[in-house]
């Protein structure tokens, strides 16, 4: 068993999720900051879509390395998760072309914060179980 398998399983998924949620937080905050900018279009990342797209690659067949000169694939499937931003289809509520809907941004902000906290607690717990296994349960 390689040492990289120690942090296999759900660790890459959670890391990627935390990265994306941190980015999404910045994005929502920038939407809120631009709530009064004329012609500003609010936008968003749909994190779940990105993670589901690549989430199943961990079950894909790995590339065989049958010769020592073959390059080993080091990506874990989640490296390819890229940030796609999407202009939200909010209606312009005012005459100045600004599409920031403050209520929706607030809902997105707190939803994102809750999910971020959940993911960080989960990954903390997973590290705790690993540590317990290494330290003989102490």
């Amino acid at each position, binding site marked *: 068993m390689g040492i990289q398998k120690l942090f296999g399983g759900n660790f890459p*998924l959670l890391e990627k999720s935390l990265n994306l949620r941190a980015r999404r937080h910045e994005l929502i905050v920038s939407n809120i900051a631009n709530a009064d900018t004329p012609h500003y279009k609010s936008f968003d990342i749909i*994190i779940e879509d990105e993670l*589901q797209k690549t989430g199943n690659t961990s079950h894909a067949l790995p590339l065989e390395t049958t010769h020592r000169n073959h390059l080993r694939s080091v990506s874990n499937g989640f490296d390819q998760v890229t940030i796609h931003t999407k202009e939200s289809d909010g209606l312009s509520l005012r005459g100045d072309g600004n599409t920031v809907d403050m209520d929706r941004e607030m809902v997105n902000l707190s939803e994102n914060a809750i999910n971020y906290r959940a993911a960080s607690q989960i990954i903390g717990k997973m590290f705790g179980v690993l540590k317990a296994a290494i330290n003989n349960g102490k």
Partner: protein
Amino acid sequence: MSDLIINKTVPPISTPLADPSKAAEPTDGAFGKIIGRAINDVNKQMAEADKAVEALTSGTNKDIHGTMIAMEKASISFHLINQIRNKIIDAYKEVQRMSF
């Protein structure tokens, strides 16, 4: 040839001295089986928690508290089985140190 039999009254060694009907039931690995089953249960619980975490993180499931409870259960089960293992090893060492 019958002279070679030294003492007919001594029972053969193979027969147990105790009442054969009261002989202990075959316990080959009964304790091991219990421990093995417990370890399997813990493993299953951890796999379930992993599945719940994956579903929550990728957004197919919104059940945050269910995932947290599953994780905590798996974690506590793991710690318990780890302590049981430590106790078993301690007991083994204790027996090993015994002098007769």
